[in-house]
């Protein structure tokens, strides 16, 4: 490699920066700090139109170093960040926000609150309008901290209430926190985005003060407004709300339907299947079967007894009624090539039997029906079960033997 013997300001700062980056990648914080001291003078030539100029670099790098360096303290960090705030007015609110996050991560909630409040009151000509997004975030997080205070006071009140005390000042505090929080939280969730935490808190507030309509509207918006990015949690929150308020099965089911579409492996699929199985409508029961099969496609569900028991119950019920065997056939069609190895191998049979008898039982039910009495899994488990003289296995064996022809119809 040819070593240049020329050097100018720009080049030497580029080289310096690469040394800093190397040191940081290797977590050599002292070395990074050392080279950063030589890089800082690039601030004196900061008329760059680059996307990321020296002042932003120094802010980001300095923050990283101060976060990780063993000798650095919160005090140092604060003093550094305050300087960074004065460096670039275009970045002011962003720096404030990140500063607040850092304080929160270190448990300094009051300081974070002060910071956010201070930032909220910042005005700087047309910059205020340009940095509108950051401002909304600052207000939202401050609202969140207001919620947090509210929550603490609520707890105090309830405790006092139990002890028979009445505490007017705390109550007043609490209500004022509520108002502050509500205003800001409401604002941010209007903007399309992912605001799980804010939504939850806001809904909590609304529910406490009895404004269920508003709460429902907020959750519906969050879940169904197409401008918002697809977010499984939105549906979960809505479902949980509806459940809390004793809504009809119909609305619960419709809330979970979309969740199934987005995240077939969601843990709520069990609830979903349970509701659907019990439904009087044929379509719903059919959907239930689809849901539970889909869930068990995922490796994370392999050892979930509850899920297997749902599936077992449903296929058993279908087999006994001798109606809708075609449903099973349809579901099994795309799975018959890989489920046997995935769920019903001999190895798994052994393991399941050793580790979890209930699991092996439920799986055996399913295996026996889908793969017949001669399949590895069923044979092994039922044999073991009968040997151990566990009653239900004997019952199971009889059942599968009786309905064996069904398997032939399914697999054919």
């Amino acid at each position: 490699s040819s070593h240049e013997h020329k050097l100018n300001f720009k080049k030497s700062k580029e080289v310096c920066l690469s040394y800093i980056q190397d040191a940081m990648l290797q977590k050599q914080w002292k070395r990074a700090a050392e080279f950063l001291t030589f890089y800082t003078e690039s601030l004196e030539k900061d008329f760059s139109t680059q996307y990321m100029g020296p002042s932003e670099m120094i802010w980001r790098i300095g923050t990283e170093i101060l976060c990780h360096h063993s000798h650095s303290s919160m005090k140092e960090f604060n003093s550094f960040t305050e300087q960074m705030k004065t460096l670039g007015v275009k970045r002011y609110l962003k720096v404030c926000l990140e500063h607040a996050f850092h304080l929160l991560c270190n448990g300094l909630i009051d300081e974070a609150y002060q910071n956010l409040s201070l930032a909220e009151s910042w005005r700087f000509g047309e910059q205020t309008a340009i940095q509108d997004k950051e401002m909304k975030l600052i207000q939202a997080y401050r609202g969140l901290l207001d919620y947090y205070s509210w929550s603490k006071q609520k707890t105090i009140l309830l405790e006092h209430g139990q002890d028979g005390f009445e505490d007017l000042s705390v109550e007043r505090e609490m209500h004022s926190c509520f108002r502050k929080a509500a205003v800001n939280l409401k604002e941010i969730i209007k903007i399309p985005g992912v605001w799980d935490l804010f939504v939850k808190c806001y809904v909590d507030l609304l529910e406490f003060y009895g404004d269920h309509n508003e709460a429902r509207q907020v959750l519906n918006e969050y879940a169904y407004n197409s401008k918002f990015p697809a977010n499984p949690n939105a549906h979960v929150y809505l479902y949980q709300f509806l459940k809390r308020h004793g809504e009809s099965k119909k609305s619960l089911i419709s809330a979970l339907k979309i969740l199934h579409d987005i995240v077939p492996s969601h843990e709520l699929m069990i609830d979903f299947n349970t509701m659907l199985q019990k439904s009087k409508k044929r379509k719903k029961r059919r959907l239930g079967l689809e849901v539970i099969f889909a869930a068990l496609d995922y490796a994370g569900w392999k050892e979930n007894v509850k899920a297997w028991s749902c599936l077992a119950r449903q296929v058993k019920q279908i087999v006994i009624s001798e109606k809708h065997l075609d449903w099973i056939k349809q579901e099994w069609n795309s799975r018959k090539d890989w489920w046997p190895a995935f769920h019903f191998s001999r190895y798994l049979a052994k393991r399941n039997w050793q580790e979890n008898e209930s699991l092996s039982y439920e799986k055996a039910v399913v295996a026996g029906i889908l793969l017949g009495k001669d399949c590895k899994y069923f044979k092994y488990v039922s044999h073991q079960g009968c040997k151990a003289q566990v009653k239900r296995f004997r019952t199971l064996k009889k059942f599968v033997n009786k309905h064996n022809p069904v398997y032939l119809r399914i697999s054919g």
Partner: protein
Amino acid sequence: RDFNERCAQCSEVNWGLTDGGRFYCRSCHNVTERTREVVNADFISNARIQTISKGLRKQEKTDGGCEWYVCEGFQLVLKKQAEALEALGVCPQMKDEILCNFWRRYLQKSKQAYCNRPAGETVKALSVCDSSTDVDSEPERPSLLHLSLSESEGDLQTDCSFASSTSRVSESTSVCSGSVDGSLYLMKNQREKLRMTMPMTLSFCYMALLWLREPMTLSDLLRFVVEGHIPYLNVFQHFPEKMKLCGLDLKIFCVESWPVYEEVYNKMLELAAFLDLPRFPDITDSCFLHPDMLCMKYLMEANLPDELHNWTCRVVKKICIGEADFLTLVPGNKSTRNVKYDVLAAAVIVVVLKLLFLLDDHYEWLLSDFAEESNKNNKEGGPYFEFKKWYKVIKCSLDVEQKKLDEERAKYLWRCEKPLFYSAKKKSKVLKRRQMVVNLQNQFGKLSGSVQPAEKPKPSSFQLSWSEENTDGSCFHGHSLKGILQEKCGLLTAMNPAYWLCTVKLCTEKLCGHLAHYREVDFPQSYHFVLRLFSFILRIQPSYIHDEVCVIEHKLFNKKLCKKSKYNTGLRK
């Protein structure tokens, strides 16, 4: 002043003083025969040059500054540089006489002083290079001059179209620069005059060093600059308080890159021609700059055996580059190629290494093994030189030093305490930024651990040094070349019979600026390694050394090249 007569032409009372001491009317430029009474005896004994436009120059401006001209600034720079060179051991003659006179001559030739005034210029009084009178002494003008160049003695006539142009100067400059003529300076037409720049100050220095034949090459000089021993970067911080820099001055005096060898060298040649200098003092074989001497130095620094010196001398003699006529600078003489002494010496060594070791990535290692064998049997006398051992030692050191140098480049600081601002408006912002930089440096400096800011290393002529006292055998100065030489007709010649030319044909310098084109991949690695070594020592690109090597080879094998026949015979004396 106290001349209150009405002008004959325009009846105004608005008088100024010409250089000749005559009054002239500022409104209509009518020159009278009335002369100013000489008040001071001092006045008579020295020819003085006064500022024309405003009698005495304006003393204090609102910010405590005074008027100053760009070339005064440069004069100060040169003075500081000369002082630093004196501190490094250069003889005081350089500062007091040589550099001074060069500078004065330059001012004269470029019509900035000591001469008839063309339109658009103001005359200024300059202080001498002596330490006694200085720019920052009494604010009154004019100051004294010791004149040793005959052209500047006596009365100087003035141009009458003066007043209008000077007012133009003062209008435009007060806004754009701290100096009076900053903006005018940058607008100047380049063709006749050689405009002064910061790199050119080094050209001046080098020219003076060369005139005195001081033991400092251009690469040494530039290295001292980069290491901070010679004021160059931020030299304006030595300007007196009253000389305020702002606006366009920054473009003139602010340096943001290391001086480049080629640039400084070429400017020096231009300058020497511009100043109509005569033939420089002869470079003889007792001079430091003579290839025989420099080769010795570089051989030592490259940790090569002293015996190689015989060979370098032979090459030098053979191609006649040791002649005073070849080595001495004759300004303006385009027919002779100008000599870069340091590059030349390095190139000679490279050629010698090629002669003895071939450096084709095979032969040198073979020879080394051969020498190693001989060394096993050779118990008495000094060890034979083994290329392999030398290569390992040098590579190790070179890598370490190069790494240090790379880090130094990353850590180079360009700014200084004295802040610079383009205009008064920006001043507060600049100061705030500077303060923040200092704060950040302190904050992160503490987190750097126990790393102390390194003290400026003492300036040294050698970057690499090897001592024969080291018992680890890492010094090769005393090693013998016997292992790779053979006796032939009573003379020691190289065992290597072959040679490869770096290039068959030299380029025309005028067309592409180079005599040859060096690409690392086209040449053997050993050759590249040797180039890299000297490239590090001289702080220049390997291609410059390569160019010089090509030229030397062409001189050396001139006859054979002319014959255009294959050459397999070795070099014989």
